[in-house]
């Protein structure tokens, strides 16, 4: 289907179902249950899942395929955000031109940075991208304040021209982002006994774009271009002596990946028309590195899972406080309860970063393929068990001759 193999179609379908069904899937607990705090089916949170998913998919096209570790990817997201807000200010509140502008500006910016940074590889590449991103961040905070809004961030105002739209709504407010009149913030609620499901226009807009972005990334992974990128990762020398110049390929991957970041930035401002320089800070670049690697760098679905996992922890797990923990472990004898709570507490709630750091280290050390590889390994164990049960445990595999 759509030029994909069966396996890839399945993955695409899974992502589609997950994305479109998220308002249901992320709201499994009725509001009255004590577990309701684990629901994540809120529009703004779901938007974040999807937007960071797009960001991580883009990062993965660069890092997962070519192995070039960029520590400055947030710069493109930030630049995209500014471009989007400027479109809202100058042109009008339609999200399409804003997002296109985000991608184009981020793309141009990444051509510039990529062209220079890709003259070096390895750790030097990482440090160059880091330096560029930090420089952009510092500039956005200081000299470029007229363009970026400096510390307060870039906001919409009633005086913006908006030549294709209105500067002010009839009731005197700043207009909100919309898709040909369909407002991004519009919600529809569905109440089924104790469950409340919220369907948000903005979320579905992002979700559709995620599916398209994901489809494109599958095509890139499976294309000859993707094959070249993987070849760059494993052996540039051989590539050179096959008559191929790796530079244009890596630059193309860098720019594509920068445009994905720009798209994510554009979507962010389409959901909430405000852009700040902190989005470009190097920790933000570090976050997308965490997402892609935790989920599984070089795998298709990994980055989306990683983004979802981290955003879930940041927004849900971080809210668990000591009282809630005490409620959970109330069934234990008093003394034991306190001990258990004091042992668990550092790792959740405000300490979620600690858990994240530990998980990340474990993944880098033991599971280079991230959560996806973890899932595959577990799957394999189960399959092996099944095989044994059916008595088909011959397990004859070709043994690779050692060197």
């Amino acid at each position, binding site marked *: 289907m759509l030029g994909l193999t069966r396996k890839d179609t399945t993955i695409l379908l899974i992502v589609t179902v997950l994305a479109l069904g998220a308002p249901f899937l992320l709201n499994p607990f009725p509001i009255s249950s004590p577990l309701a705090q684990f629901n994540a089916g809120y529009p703004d949170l779901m938007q974040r899942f999807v937007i960071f998913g797009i960001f991580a998919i883009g990062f993965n096209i660069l890092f997962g395929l070519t192995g070039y570790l960029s520590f400055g990817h947030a710069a493109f997201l930030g630049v995209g955000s500014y471009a989007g807000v400027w479109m809202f200010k100058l042109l009008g509140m339609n999200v399409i031109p804003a997002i296109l502008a985000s991608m184009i500006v981020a793309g141009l910016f990444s051509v510039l940075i990529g062209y220079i940074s890709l003259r070096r590889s*390895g*750790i030097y590449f990482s440090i160059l991208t880091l330096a560029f991103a930090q420089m952009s961040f510092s500039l956005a905070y200081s000299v470029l304040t007229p363009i970026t809004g400096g510390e307060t961030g870039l906001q919409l105002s009633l005086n913006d021209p908006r030549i294709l739209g209105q500067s002010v709504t009839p009731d005197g407010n700043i207009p909100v982002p919309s898709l040909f009149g369909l407002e991004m913030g519009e919600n529809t609620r569905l109440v089924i006994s104790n469950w409340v499901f919220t369907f948000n226009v903005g979320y579905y807009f992002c979700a559709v774009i995620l599916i398209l972005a994901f489809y494109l990334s599958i095509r890139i992974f499976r294309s000859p271009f993707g094959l070249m990128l993987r070849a760059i990762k494993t052996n540039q020398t051989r590539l050179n002596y096959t008559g191929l110049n790796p530079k244009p390929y890596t630059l193309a991957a860098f720019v594509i990946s920068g445009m994905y970041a720009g798209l994510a930035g554009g979507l962010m401002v389409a959901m909430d028309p405000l852009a700040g320089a902190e989005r470009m800070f190097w920790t933000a670049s570090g976050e997308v590195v965490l997402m892609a690697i935790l989920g599984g760098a070089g795998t298709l679905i990994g980055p989306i899972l990683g983004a979802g996992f981290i955003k879930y922890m940041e927004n849900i797990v971080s809210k668990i406080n000591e009282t809630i923990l005490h409620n959970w472990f109330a069934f234990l004898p008093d003394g034991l309860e306190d001990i258990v709570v004091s042992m668990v507490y550092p790792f959740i709630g405000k300490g979620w970063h600690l858990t994240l750091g530990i998980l990340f280290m474990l993944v880098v050390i033991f599971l280079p393929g991230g959560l996806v590889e973890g899932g595959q390994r577990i799957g394999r164990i189960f399959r092996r068990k099944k095989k044994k049960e059916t008595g088909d445990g011959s397990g004859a595999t070709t043994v690779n001759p050692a060197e």
Partner: protein
Amino acid sequence: MDAFILQILNGLDKGSAYALIALGLTLIFGTLGVVNFAHGALFMIGAFVAVTVSRILSISMVVEDPTKTDFLGNPAKISTPYVEEWFGPTIGAGILDWAVPISIIIAIPIMIVIGVIMERGLIQHFYKRPHADQILVTFGLAIVLQEVIKYFYGANPIPTPAPAAFIGSFDFGAMIGFDPNTIIYPYWRLVYFAFSAIIIAVVFAFLQFTTFGMVVRAGMADRETVGLLGINIDKRFTMMFGLAAAVAGLAGVMYAPINSPNYHMGMDFLVLSFIVVVVGGMGSLGGAVLAGFLLGILESFASMSAVIELIPGINQVIIYLVAIIILLTRPRGLLGRKGVMED
């Protein structure tokens, strides 16, 4: 002229911190070939050793004084730090006052132990893995270390004063014959600079004049050959990691009075220190020190108002700009050797 000297002085203390961290980074890189993203965390831990020592020293014995009452009518509590109890009020107060310098003695073994544990427990398994993996795992470690510190010490900066004798500033301009009040410089910053210079000298002397240092230098030049000589290079490199950790930790201890320690200070310094290492030349000790001071001083020159008027924003980006230019024009950095990570 006086403004010129002032800027050089201002650049020195930051430059010292850059140089010390970069020295450790490049030492680790040159000997072990590992890119350590957790090195900034070692600097931060050093600063928190200072915090902890001053806290421990001020643990107090609380006695209720029945003769006096506080405004609520309860017996007043008088707390006396144990050190004052044991050594008498004068010496005790002196010890308390000198908590930061005292921390140096305590920090050295602690940092060496942490360094050795890090190397044996984690880093050694990454020697043969790609640099990207090394960056990632040490990046994860840095997050973990910084979160552990945050858990125990909270997220707010903790003021850690220097000894009273070094608080305040002195008129450096008047001392060297300029008009008074043109070059005012805080005492502690001068101490920091002098301290850094001593540490750097000690590290260089250690590498230059001891057998241990000789082996390490030989290992930096050609690891395989030294290994063939039957010298257990790995053991020495582990010690090298401990030494680098100690240098970073000491830089942190002494930096505590300049900037109140907080849990993310390591990361803030790390990014810049990496740039220092790259500018100086990966694996070059002299380059790291040179580039550290150079960039520190450049940064303070760029913050002069005359310069900012000329090129707005230059103070924010000067270091990055220099790094980018150096990386593109002199791939080996200022003093880098041939063959060390050239691609």
